[in-house]
């Protein structure tokens, strides 16, 4: 009985502390997240969430049509290793973790009105959204996110490449 009371106190205080911390923390999350890949990119819905539905292209064939138009630049948000193992042919490697180092070079190469589509590893990955937000903040207003990422592109059998050297800002 005594143990039950102690447990109630400890657990009760923890739950209260948990919700207070979550409420005030800038990193707090929603009570229910979005964990269904058929609904889009999975996310815990953090307060400053980078997932922006209005930027999303959830249809790979539509992305392919834009690709075929020849005017759109595909930008790969994944690591260099992932890029080297396979990427959309002609894509530019801009790992989101290296954004600050690479962005000056990118700005020299591409005008701000260049149509851009970012992608990463699919619907469990939010790096492409993060990258899109960073690009938009730098003035690339014409930026979208292909949420099915490289796996979705590859699954459709569209053209891919495997060299690490092509189109990277070295």
């Amino acid at each position: 009985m005594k143990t039950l009371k102690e447990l109630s106190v400890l657990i009760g205080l923890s739950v209260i502390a948990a919700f207070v911390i979550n409420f005030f923390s800038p990193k707090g999350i929603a009570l229910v997240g979005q964990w269904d890949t058929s609904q889009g990119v999975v996310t815990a819905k953090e307060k400053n969430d980078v997932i922006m539905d209005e930027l999303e292209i959830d249809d790979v064939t539509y992305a392919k049509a834009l690709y075929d138009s020849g005017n759109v630049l595909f930008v790969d948000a994944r690591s260099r290793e992932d890029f080297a193992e396979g990427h959309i042919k002609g894509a530019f490697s801009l790992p989101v973790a290296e954004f600050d180092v690479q962005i000056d070079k990118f700005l020299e190469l591409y005008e701000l009105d260049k149509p851009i589509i970012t992608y990463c590893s699919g619907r469990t990955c939010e790096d492409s959204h993060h990258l899109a937000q960073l690009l938009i903040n730098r003035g690339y207003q014409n930026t979208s996110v292909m949420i099915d990422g490289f796996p979705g592109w590859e699954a459709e059998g569209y053209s891919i490449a495997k060299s690490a050297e092509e189109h990277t800002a070295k």
Partner: protein
Amino acid sequence: MQSLLKSIPQNSWVELASRWILGLTFIYSSYSKILSPAGFAKIIYGYGLFPAKLINLIAIIVPSLELLVALALIFGIYPRSAVLIVNVLLAAFIILISINLIRGHEFNCGCFALQNSGNQVSSPSTIIRDFIYLALGIQVFLYKQPRRWCVRQSG
């Protein structure tokens, strides 16, 4: 020799050491989760074992529970009940990791946040480590003597 083996678990300094090791470990493990609940939620999602509606609630509550019972262990506030919670959490971690190891489920989202957190979701060494912590936790739980440096032993 046999009496020595029996006396070690009931040694008050051993109990204090176990309690503090567990306390510091749990503070450390709660720290990054409290700083990044979204990252922790994604790890929980990656286990592929929880209903979608519960993932965020687990990600919100578990880190605070870890932190509070860790502080309770270190300061000696309801230490026996606190360590009971610790043991239940450790047992749950061991079961979850074992399930994923057995069914060969390895979640890799291919994203930076999870790579940088250095989280190895399922590995045998994690299970061994958790069993060692669980042994310490059981010792603290079964300890019968008055405990050292406790603000409130029970009540």
